[in-house]
């Protein structure tokens, strides 16, 4: 995008996100919804196969999960909602209609706060969150004779699917990505979905248009599909924005159409579906409406956890953590809760020491802990080291029982074995040396063995001190209290001068 064009047009993006809900049974039948690694066509019953004579029954958990999501997205929950039939014959749609929600969805009018680096957060409108059912999975193949055909696996047919329709409030591909990241984070926080784009349980279609900066009317809109990762969404939207910019700059108009994202190629016009799109929505006669009283809505709201934004702000205020650290700590609910358990394990200490401990805990969690988890491919819930032990280890450092250098070795051993810090310290012989005689003896040995640096220091070269500290640490295998060592070392250097 040229800089002139970048300022000439405003990009307008709205996202439609489909999320598979994590329920035990499917949306309208008793088949297990957990089909991820299943043999094809083994999670199928007369209902999700749409045999003659079957009827749907609404999965209560799916309704609750949708309402919970809507509440987390600041939506209002109408007292009356219903399901409708959306008619479109297609081989992957077993009944020939999808049970969805048309004019009276479970929720409407919410928002999500999105932040792009170095810009103030913006509220992106949520049009509605509604509930429907997933289709079966079609795979396209070509046989040896060149004949193309499709294979149908019904396992996905009827899995609860939540659609989150966003307002066209997003203004850049980066912001679109940030919206998706935030949405996924919330869905995982509240535990309604695995929300994994690569696994297909979090899917995104985008509408994108350009308009002259300052204009209020929307430009012709292009729907972009087939994006299988956050990066693909960002890249596809960037590509499409540039394509539209070039077209507009060349005086061409934008065709309202559907385009598919092809990795390495760009967005490609998709031939419009044969036959007109006329979904002929009408109320689903097999399903009575859903009515929710204020009390019922509150009962669904009650178990909602503290959401990432609120938690991040609280971490900043309560523990004095910098935004960057608070953000990392609240990235997942599991990490945030682990962190809070570390702090809680040290209860009883005063506010200042609590903040100090929080900083230490944050450093460990963002640093060595995250690195070790990543290296071993573990999630924080799988870690062998308990929050209480991490807290105890931090206390050992604070109390001067082990040095900061030793703590790294202790932590690594705790991470591998899951053993308590005191035992690890004893076993590794890493108790800190703080007796002044012992420190003096080590310093004497170091000074005797390093005449040249000693002379340089005395000649005014301050950097030599650092070298001598390092030598003393090596001599003590890191067990020396750094402050006490420096004090003793400088005193002795001065004394012999």
């Amino acid at each position, binding site marked *: 995008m040229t800089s002139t064009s970048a300022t000439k047009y405003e990009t307008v993006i709205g996202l439609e996100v489909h999320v598979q809900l994590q*329920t*035990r*049974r499917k949306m309208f039948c*008793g*088949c*297990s*919804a957990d089909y991820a690694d299943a*043999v*094809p*066509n*083994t*999670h*199928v*019953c*007369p209902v999700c*196969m749409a*045999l003659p004579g079957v009827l749907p*029954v*609404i*999965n*209560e*958990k*799916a*309704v609750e999960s949708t309402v919970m999501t809507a509440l987390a997205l600041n939506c209002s929950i109408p007292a009356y909602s*219903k399901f409708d039939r959306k*008619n479109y*014959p*297609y*081989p*992957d749609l077993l009944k020939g209609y999808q049970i969805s929600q048309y004019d009276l969805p479970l929720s409407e009018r919410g928002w999500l706060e999105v932040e792009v680096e170095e810009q103030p957060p913006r509220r992106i409108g949520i049009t509605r969150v509604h509930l429907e059912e997933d289709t079966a999975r*079609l*795979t*396209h193949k070509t046989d040896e004779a060149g*004949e*193309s*055909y*499709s*294979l*149908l*696996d*019904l396992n996905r047919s009827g899995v609860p699917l939540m659609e989150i329709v966003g307002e066209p409030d997003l203004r850049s591909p980066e912001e679109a990505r940030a919206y998706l990241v935030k949405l996924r984070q919330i869905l995982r926080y509240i535990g309604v979905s695995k929300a994994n784009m690569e696994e297909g349980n979090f899917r995104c279609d985008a509408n994108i248009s350009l308009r002259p900066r300052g204009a209020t009317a929307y430009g012709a809109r292009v729907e972009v599909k087939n994006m299988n990762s956050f990066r693909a969404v960002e890249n596809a939207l960037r590509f499409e924005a540039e394509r539209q910019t070039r077209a507009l700059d060349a005086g061409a108009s934008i065709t309202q159409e559907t385009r598919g994202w092809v990795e390495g190629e760009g967005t490609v016009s998709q031939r419009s579906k*044969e*036959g*007109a799109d*006329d979904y*002929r929505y*009408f*109320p689903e*006669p097999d*399903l*009575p*409406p*859903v*009515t929710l009283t204020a009390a019922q809505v509150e009962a669904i709201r009650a178990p909602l956890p503290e959401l990432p934004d609120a938690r991040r702000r609280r971490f900043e205020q309560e523990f004095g953590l910098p935004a960057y650290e608070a953000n990392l700590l609240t990235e997942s609910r599991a990490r945030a809760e682990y962190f809070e358990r570390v702090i809680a394990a040290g209860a009883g200490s005063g506010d200042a020491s609590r903040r100090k401990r929080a900083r230490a805990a944050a450093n460990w969690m963002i640093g060595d802990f995250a690195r070790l988890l990543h290296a071993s491919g573990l999630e924080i819930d799988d870690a062998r080291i308990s929050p209480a032990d991490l807290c105890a280890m931090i206390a050992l450092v604070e109390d001067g029982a082990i040095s900061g250098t030793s703590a790294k070795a202790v932590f690594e051993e705790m991470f591998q074995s899951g053993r308590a810090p005191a035992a690890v310290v004893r076993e590794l012989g890493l108790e800190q040396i703080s007796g002044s005689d012992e420190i003096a003896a080590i310093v004497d040995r170091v000074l005797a063995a390093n005449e040249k640096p000693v002379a340089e220091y005395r000649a005014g070269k301050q950097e030599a001190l650092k070298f001598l500290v390092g030598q003393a640490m090596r001599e003590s295998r890191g067990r020396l209290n750094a402050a006490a060592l420096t004090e003793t070392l400088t005193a002795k250097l001065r004394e012999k001068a």
Partner: protein
Amino acid sequence: MSIDRETVLHIAKLARIALTDDEIELFRSQLSDILGHFDVLDGIDTDGIEPTAQILPLENVFAPDVSRPSLPQAEVLKLAPLTDDGYLRVRAVLE
């Protein structure tokens, strides 16, 4: 109320039904006739009347989130006109 051949073809496409030429003309004429009789509805005042989609005043009929066994794969495939290695098979959807 009279509908034309184009409308019949459009509706047949939406409903995914192949019609013969004779059927197209027959349905055009019969549907026109039937729709003509629906004018009687115009005589009923429905201002302020709520539509009835379901006759019983039921609401919130839910199933608890418990899964049950599915059909054996063989039972599913046995019904299908064409199968292929555990899948149902159809001609290419993308034309």
